[in-house]
């Protein structure tokens, strides 16, 4: 099919922000029982290097006939030319994605949303806290930082999963543990394999191992299941990290990704254009950001 270009009376229609471009799935393998890893390249190779994005941003991915949904980019812009995602089988589109084979195509548009404020984070200590699927956006940030290692201070990476089988990118992180310039701590809630060599316990137990922290000089980035936020935030605030330096990425239902369809609206913000990265301060004063109740009682 050829793209139509419609000339209106006064001017040519600008690019259509809803227009997906076709990308080819070049690699696809399971990370856990219900999460797959995907690597995609544009069908039109000239496009390959045009996709500029920042860690924390997301794209809208579609399968023609099935629909479209938002997914974080898990790869880093410091390694251009391809995009990586980890996708959990949840419903209609995601299960169709699971049926896709390598070499098949999907529609991608984006990148959308804000991103981790790398300009402000540069020169600071970085603490990344990932729980479960929360790795998806945080891996992008982590890899970006590691690729630009000299621009950042101390980097700590905390990662928790339910059990060893559920830990996304497990092998990748075990390799990272070898690095001197990264403090990488991994934990599982429960070891059901008997072969787990790292910590067990909730992710908050890792905080005990952190030692002294230059809290005012630290940016924390957190992503994980809603229940995790409550406890992790308490710890981070207690450590003295300023609320506006604690960052998190949020999820909402989305149909457009560009602030039109309304679904992700929270008060005057749209999660898709004003987020998905928010600070803990945003969450505290925007009552609805992580749902009624979660932030109600927190005054700290």
């Amino acid at each position, binding site marked *: 099919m050829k793209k139509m270009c419609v000339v209106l009376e006064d001017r040519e229609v600008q690019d259509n922000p809803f227009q997906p471009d076709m990308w080819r799935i070049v690699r696809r393998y399971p990370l856990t029982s219900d999460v797959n890893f995907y690597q995609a390249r544009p069908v039109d190779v000239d496009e390959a290097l045009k996709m500029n994005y920042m860690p924390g941003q997301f794209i809208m991915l579609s399968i023609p*006939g099935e629909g479209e949904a938002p997914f974080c980019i898990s790869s880093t812009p410091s390694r251009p030319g391809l995009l990586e995602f980890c996708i959990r089988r949840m419903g209609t589109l995601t*299960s169709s994605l699971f049926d896709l084979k390598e070499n098949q195509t999907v529609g991608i548009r984006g990148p959308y949303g804000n991103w981790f404020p790398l300009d402000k984070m540069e020169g600071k200590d970085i603490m990344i806290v990932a729980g479960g699927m929360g790795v998806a956006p945080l891996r992008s940030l982590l890899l970006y930082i590691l690729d630009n290692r000299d621009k950042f201070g101390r980097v700590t990476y905390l990662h928790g999963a339910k059990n060893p089988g559920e830990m996304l990118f497990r092998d990748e992180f075990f390799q990272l543990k070898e690095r001197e310039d990264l403090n990488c701590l991994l934990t599982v809630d429960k070891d059901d394999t008997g072969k787990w060599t790292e910590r067990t316990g909730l992710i908050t137990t890792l905080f005990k191992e952190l030692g002294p922290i230059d809290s005012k000089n630290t940016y924390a980035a957190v992503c994980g299941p809603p229940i995790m936020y409550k406890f992790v935030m308490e710890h981070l605030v207690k450590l003295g990290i300023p609320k506006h330096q604690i960052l998190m990425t949020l999820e909402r239902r989305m149909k457009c990704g560009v602030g039109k369809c309304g679904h992700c609206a929270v008060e005057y913000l749209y999660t898709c254009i004003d987020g998905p990265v928010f600070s803990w301060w945003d969450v505290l004063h925007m009552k609805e950001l992580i749902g009624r109740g979660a932030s109600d009682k927190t005054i700290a």
Partner: protein
Amino acid sequence: MTRPSPKIGVYGFTGCAGDQLMILNCEDQLVDLFGATEIRSFVMAKSDNHEAELDVALVEGSISTEAQLKHLKDIRERSKVLIAIGTCACWGGPQAMKLGDGKFEERYKKVYGNAKITVSKAIEGQPLDAFVKVDMKIPGCPIDKQEFLKSVSKLVAGKHPYLLKSPVCLECKWKENKCLLLDGKFCAGPLTKGGCGAVCPSHNLPCVGCWGPTDDLNVSAEYDLLKEKGFVPEEIITKIRKFGGSGVMELVKNLEKKEAKK
């Protein structure tokens, strides 16, 4: 990429056969439908039926005899996906409007007396999901042609069908109708799943609820509103239950309990 054509079976239990008829009413698409799928069984439309493994079973009607129940279980076992089509299959339909009132035997006797009927034992009409797992419901009395075709087209393409989840009022407003509730008419629109194109309100007639309950209905608010408009409780409940079957049974019971407390 060509996909193998899905093996489909169309079955009917107790109901008016309207949903199967609506399939036959897809005059413009019927030939394509038979071409894009392998219709293994469709007793209402053809004689050469063979009962074997199915990708998709489209089942109409409620279950109201033991023999039907046995047949349904057999269909379920042979089918990858079982779709309830029509309000009878989804919620029980009109024959389930008094579901759970404990008076089925009484009504049955009034009709058949003590006559012995040997074909099968009758049971009170109930929707398919009272007995087997139902993968999807396409409600409607009868189903809407477009909604049905859209769903089947997606199934044939190996995609997931999408049905409107909103109430009739959505399409009613798209048609720019003035709300009949404002005129004190009993419109079941807010309680009823949309997808019909709001035909009745567009004919100045209240929605009778034939699509069955919507995803998220506020029965007690509608009840209060109608009482305020002068309807008596019995009539309100009759109208809510007319097509609601199993979908409103509990809701109405709760309503009645709440009323009794008042």
